[in-house]
């Protein structure tokens, strides 16, 4: 099984067959079950899924931030040919921030309430680069200006609670790009924000990524955000990747029944009120006791006997498009 051979852009990070378990070996939960993805320079990859799909755990696993009793139990995370799974805690600390910048959903809990935001950004720089405190602070101010914080020199002296939600997210982004990492991982970066603020943060992330020619791994549940930001998309469900495609194919020629059903669930702003809403019946599986075979099979209107007998592998069906479904090559009608 190979990932899609996406042409163009060199590889920044290559993740193969990642598996992460929480709890004991027997009776534990495999939250990430064989995820592979490739981040390329200058491109945005979106990891989309509902709660419990394993998208955030995938990001934490990549960054070596899974806390016991959770554990990454299999797979490789290759950064410039180096497997991060074999890196020491100290090496990972050096990599996080310098090589991989991180932005999380809730900027308030990610920031230290007792430190000025200028000193928090300077701290990131000082942790990774041999510069003076004054130089680090000056760069923090420049970074704040760069992410659109007005009156940056003065605002650098303020504490996190002085900032609005949108401004705090800008501060966090400034800290994430402080050492010009080649990879930015953003986990639901705009979920807590109002839509007019979200638009500005998305634009900022996009512009910075382009300017730095960085790889952006964007984790979100919002298909609108995916459509506007991503080059490549991975759809996750119950710990597994069910479909991987370029953004246009994913929205206009999706093959996996889950992807298709998910797109049918969106209450689009332009949808006619009389068009029937097509929900996916049932609930996502309990990962303590996952169903056999394809994990979407119990909710899938196209499921056949084979679907519960074995796990469908993620197979490449066209250049850059892979699907984990036994019926991917059939023309499945709309239910």
């Amino acid at each position, binding site marked *: 099984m190979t990932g899609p051979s996406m042409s163009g852009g060199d590889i920044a990070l290559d993740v193969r067959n990642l598996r992460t378990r929480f709890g004991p070996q027997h009776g534990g939960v495999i939250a990430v079950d064989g995820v592979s993805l490739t981040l390329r320079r200058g491109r945005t990859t979106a990891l989309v899924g509902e709660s419990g799909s394993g998208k955030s755990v995938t990001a934490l696993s990549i960054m070596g931030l899974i806390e016991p009793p959770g554990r990454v139990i299999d797979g490789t995370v290759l950064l410039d040919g180096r497997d991060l799974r074999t890196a020491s805690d100290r090496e990972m600390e050096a990599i996080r921030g310098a090589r991989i910048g991180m932005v999380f959903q809730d900027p308030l809990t990610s920031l230290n309430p007792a430190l000025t935001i200028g000193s928090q950004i300077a701290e990131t720089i000082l942790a990774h680069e041999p510069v003076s405190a004054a130089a680090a602070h000056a760069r923090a101010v420049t970074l704040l200006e760069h992410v659109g914080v007005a009156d940056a020199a003065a605002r650098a002296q303020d504490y996190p609670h002085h900032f609005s939600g949108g401004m705090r997210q800008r501060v966090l982004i400034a800290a994430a790009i402080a050492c010009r990492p080649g990879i930015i991982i953003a986990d639901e970066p705009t979920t807590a924000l*109002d839509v007019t603020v979200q638009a500005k943060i998305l634009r900022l992330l996009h512009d910075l990524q382009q300017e730095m020619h960085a790889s952006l791994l964007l984790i979100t*549940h919002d298909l609108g*955000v995916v459509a506007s*930001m991503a080059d490549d998309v991975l759809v996750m469900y119950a710990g597994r990747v069910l479909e991987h495609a370029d*953004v246009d194919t994913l929205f206009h020629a999706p093959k996996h029944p889950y992807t298709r059903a998910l797109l049918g669930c969106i209450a689009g702003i332009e949808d006619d009120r009389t068009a029937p809403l097509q929900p996916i019946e049932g609930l996502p599986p309990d990962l303590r006791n996952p169903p056999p075979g394809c994990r979407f099979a119990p909710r899938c209107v196209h499921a056949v006997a084979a679907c519960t007998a074995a796990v469908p592998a993620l197979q490449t069906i066209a250049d850059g498009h892979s699907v984990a479904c036994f019926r991917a090559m059939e023309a499945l009608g709309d239910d």
Partner: protein
Amino acid sequence: MTETLLTVAGLSKSFRARGTGLFRRPVRAVSDVSFTLQRGETLGLVGESGCGKSTLARLVLNLIPPDSGHVTIGGDAFTRAGREAQRRLRRRMQIVFQDALSSLNPRMTVGVNIAEPLRLQGIGNAAERREAAHGLLERVGLRVQDAERYPHEFSGGQCQRIAIARALILKPDIVVFDEAVSALDVSIRAQILRLVLDLQQQLGLSYIFISHDLGVVKRVSDRIAVMYLGRIVEIGPADELVRGPLHPYAEALLRAIPIADPRRMRVRDLGLAEGEAASPMNPPDGCAFHQRCTRQLAICASDIPAVHHVSPGRSTACFLHASPAASRQAAD
């Protein structure tokens, strides 16, 4: 023939802010809000955090008293009605909240939770109430056996079904949904929206559907009201408002929403509104949106625009669409 079921006229509400002395100034949460709701209609109420939409819901339901204005249900005054009349009118309008689990009593079975409004209203005996609860469980897509289980045994979407059943047990005319699907995953949200729409068809209900998500509001609503800093800035038929918003804020809100179609919209196409929302603690003079507005007139910084009727069913509080007299004044 349409029948006006609910009339909301000039509702205003201020809260005393925390703090002391000079800093203890009132916060205007809702200012001079008026609208009507027809039988069988869904009115969507959309706005960003702090715009006052949840406070407005509580005022409409008479859960908090307004500073001014009034609410009429089917011609009966609700706001300043006597205790007994209020109790009777309350049956006609129910609410479903965002966090269904915390709105249910964890120590009561689901069946008792659903039947509780009947008991509080002194309707029926225990057996009749149980039977009514069972009937509703099936109507909202759960099983009769679920009546004996407790709320924590259910998922978020199922809890929302239970909360909907409880809201319906008094056979209300109007149900208010306050961010009722906002916490749910996309696939579960679609299930609940389908249920909400089906129930409306079956029972002839009227809805006020409050959400920060204009996509969801558009999907369920006949008409949409857009709120900004305590005021309705635009109200009109859902399709028309989404196709051609009149108020610059409604337009900014619409253009900020990413559309789930990469051929139609990429991040560069997202419209960016200037600045951030003003604080209700310290609202600007004039139109609350004027500092962020790209089309502001001189008058916008000093005068508060009244709601103007623009075309059949469409109104907006903006000097750009004011009467000719006001426009002339604005141009001076």
